[in-house]
């Protein structure tokens, strides 16, 4: 085995080239980790939204809340079904909800995007994970007030605290900002159910009913009853399954992200290979000497591969470190299932960082392989003659 210090010191001698290559690899790893962190953030937003004990009742055939409608009478019947958990006041933990989409201008002249506005019963808050008012106060029913997720408030004009928007020519004022454990609710604006439906001239309309049913047998009974009841013409899905399906909306982003990462990695491999080709050609005599002394071809191959790996792993570590200050930073993109803005927080957990380091490893191995092959294919006698 050729001592690793030989490679490390050779790298430090060519420190400018080494540094530039490390930076190039680092930038690629950083960009890839950012992309993976975004996908992880979107998936987390959707995953954390789903509770396995909650049911969403929608119109039969609807695959998302926006395209669902439930008759007001049916909605009233649904919230009184047996098996639904009760809150402290003995009221069923079931919320009738009306969902609509508004086009709103983004901040900083960032164009417009669809924002989900949800009208819901008061009890609906308890069905979201860690719902908390973080600024202002909760809305009061009957006076056209809104509460807005904190991340949406920072991304859209007029949706900050004390801002106001018009829904169908009815003015709604923002009185509070909320958080909900990074769930999909953090991509929404909430109003009182009746205020919103009356502003939309859909008095009493309901899109979905959300309910908590702790017992599995009760959940199955409700699912069966809803499905078999011809009068309802509805279907019930477990909330976690619903959001699992919504994850398919991130699939396109995921595919594009992986393709971009693959292209970037491929490009960075050339940077690594270029550096290593230069190293091999400037050290031809050293390679010849090592082989003359009796170091096997395989040993020299491993040595140069290790050198390439060291460059790429340093680049990878730099790239990963560069993303850490952005951990938790929120961003937004369009949910392909609802055509509305979904906010997420970048998440650079161990899985994402390992993916980034995996890319660096691939760059090092593939980028180092061909120069290393060139090194071992040199005729010893020719290599010894190199200046």
């Amino acid at each position, binding site marked *: 085995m*050729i001592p690793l210090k*030989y490679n490390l010191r050779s790298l430090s*001698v060519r420190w400018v080239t080494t540094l530039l290559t490390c930076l190039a690899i680092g930038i690629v790893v950083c960009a890839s980790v950012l992309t993976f962190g975004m996908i992880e953030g979107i998936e987390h937003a959707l995953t954390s939204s789903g509770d396995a004990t909650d049911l969403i009742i929608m119109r039969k055939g609807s695959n998302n809340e926006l395209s669902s409608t439930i008759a007001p009478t049916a909605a009233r019947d649904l919230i009184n079904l047996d098996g639904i958990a009760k809150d402290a006041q003995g009221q069923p933990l079931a919320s009738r909800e009306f969902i609509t989409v508004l086009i709103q201008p983004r901040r900083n002249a960032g164009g417009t995007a669809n924002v989900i506005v949800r009208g819901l019963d008061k009890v609906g808050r308890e069905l979201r994970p860690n719902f908390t008012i973080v600024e202002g106060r909760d809305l009061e029913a009957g006076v056209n007030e809104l509460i807005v997720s904190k991340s949406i408030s920072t991304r859209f004009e007029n949706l900050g605290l004390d801002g106001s928007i018009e829904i169908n020519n009815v003015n709604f004022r923002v009185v509070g900002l909320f958080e909900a454990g990074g769930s999909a609710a953090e991509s929404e604006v909430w109003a009182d159910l009746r205020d919103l439906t009356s502003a939309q001239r859909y008095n009493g309309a309901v899109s979905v009913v959300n309910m908590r049913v702790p017992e599995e047998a009760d959940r199955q009974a409700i699912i069966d009853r809803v499905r078999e009841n011809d009068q309802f013409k509805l279907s019930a899905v477990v909330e976690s399954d619903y959001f699992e399906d919504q994850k398919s909306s991130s699939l396109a982003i995921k595919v594009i992200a992986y393709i971009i990462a693959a292209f970037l990695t491929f490009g960075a491999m050339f940077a690594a290979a270029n550096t290593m080709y230069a190293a091999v050609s400037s050290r031809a*005599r050293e390679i010849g000497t090592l082989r003359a*002394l009796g170091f096997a071809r395989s040993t020299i191959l491993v040595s140069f591969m290790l050198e390439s790996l060291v460059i790429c792993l340093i680049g990878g570590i730099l790239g990963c470190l560069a993303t850490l200050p952005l951990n938790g930073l929120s961003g937004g993109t369009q949910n392909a299932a609802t055509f509305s803005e979904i906010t997420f927080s970048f998440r650079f957990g161990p899985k994402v960082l390992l993916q980034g380091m995996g890319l660096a490893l691939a760059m090092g191995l593939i980028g180092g392989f061909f120069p290393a092959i060139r090194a071992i294919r040199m005729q*010893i*006698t020719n290599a010894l003659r190199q200046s």
Partner: protein
Amino acid sequence: MSTPSNTDPVVLVRDVYKEFRKGETVIPVLAGMDLELLPGDYLAMMGPSGSGKSTLLNLIAGLDKPTSGSVIVCGQDLGKTSQSALAKWRSRHVGFIFQMYNLIPVLTAYENVELPLTLTPLSRKQRVEQVKTALEIVGLGDRMDHYPRQLSGGQEQRVSIARAIATDPTLIVADEPTGDLDAKSGNEILELMHRLNEEFHKTIIMVTHDPSAAARAKRTLTMADGRLVSDIQNSTATGTTA
């Protein structure tokens, strides 16, 4: 592999031809070369450029293979040995001294001398002893931590000699060892090589263009056009210049 006895030749070259190809052109370099070296021999090879002396040295050192004929060194037929086996063989039997020293610039004198020892089964402690001994022999015991750039040409060549003897090889091959040195340093190197031959009984083959350097060997072989022109015993070979 058999171990040669004191009377078995260390090097046995029989009817060796070596050709190089450059596209369609075949360039003959060695044409029916024969040579025999006994243990303790000190051979200088001379001849004009292109006479084939370096090619012959490379064949004997196991760095290249003949086109035809046999090269048997330390009992091993090198023409019939695989590249990986040749690498192992070189590490055990051959010490190299190059004209340009060929030290690894990022390693210290100590680390350069230790390098071939990492291919042996010696323990770290044994390696330390071997390296120190080799550097003491060449008179550089106090320069162990110096990098090649911190040494003079003569000192670099002495480190190279220490590296060549560190594994205690049977054969030392030197390709113009004084070619890049001033007269004083060159003389010191030749003295050292004479000492290796006389005191440590190393078999040495040296390629040189310098007749006074060749005169320090026990035997001088002259080549021209890939053939042996003369093979003379130097009765006056000494370690110092007259």
